[in-house]
């Protein structure tokens, strides 16, 4: 089944898939990283004592 669908792919399909896979994975990781970073910064500010603390 996979072999049949592979034969139907053109070179352009493989290139498109490779770039979609690459930037899909890296984009998802970047989005997750920045969301976690923003959440951590917000929680850090909320939990900070009034006089500040040592890191």
């Amino acid at each position, binding site marked *: 089944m*996979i072999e049949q669908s*592979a034969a139907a*792919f053109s*070179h*352009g399909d*493989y*290139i498109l*898939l*490779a*770039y979609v*896979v*690459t930037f899909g*994975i*890296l984009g998802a*990781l*970047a989005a997750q*990283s*920045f969301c*976690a*970073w923003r959440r*951590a*910064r917000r*929680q*850090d500010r909320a*939990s*900070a*004592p009034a006089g500040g*603390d*040592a*890191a």
Partner: protein
Amino acid sequence: MIRRFANPARFLSLSRWVVPVCAVLTVVTLGLGLWLALVASPPDYQQKETVRIMYVHVPAAWMALFIYTSMAAAAVTGFVWKHVVAELYAKAAAPVGAAFTLVCLLTGALWGQPMWGTWWAWDARMTSVLVLFFLYLGYIVLVDAFDDPQRGLTAGAVLLIVGVVNIPVIKFSVDWWNTLHQPASITRLDAPAIDASMLWPLLCMAAAFKFLFVTLAFVRLETEILRRRMAVRQQQLAGGA
């Protein structure tokens, strides 16, 4: 220099300008790299248009090796100097390294099918990269498997140091064994065996991936430091109550 950045507060102040600068450099080099890779560079005389997959596959493979090596170096630094930021760096960089290794494996399969007629072969290069991916996953699972976060980081550091033996195996597998995977074209002792019209897109994409890694590593490391700081505050509050 190593002790200078052992202070998390100093790292956080450094992160405040490194993240935006590297994010901008990522966008610029990625834009230029994609234009060179998909528009400006010519098709290869053997691989035809499929050579364009190499412009993401090869830099991803370089990043997979570089990030693991840097994590192992950080693990040694954490052991020898009790460097808090180095230990947290390994934890922060691991998902980024795993992502680049996955990209390398998947784009390799997407290149292999039209070029070799197979998605996968159990040859030394591909198998050792798959082992690297499992090492990344093993590390990610191991560091969070303990109630005490410090014990998790120490156990993970041991895995990183033991697993570093796989890096020269990956690099030299194409020289040591007869593999389906072709030998190195760029990182050779003599001149690169690749034309400048294909070398520049490759180097530009490699620079983009490097800047992306630095951006994500700093963002994730800052997140880890902030979480630790909040955990310390909660312990102090619980102790004072």
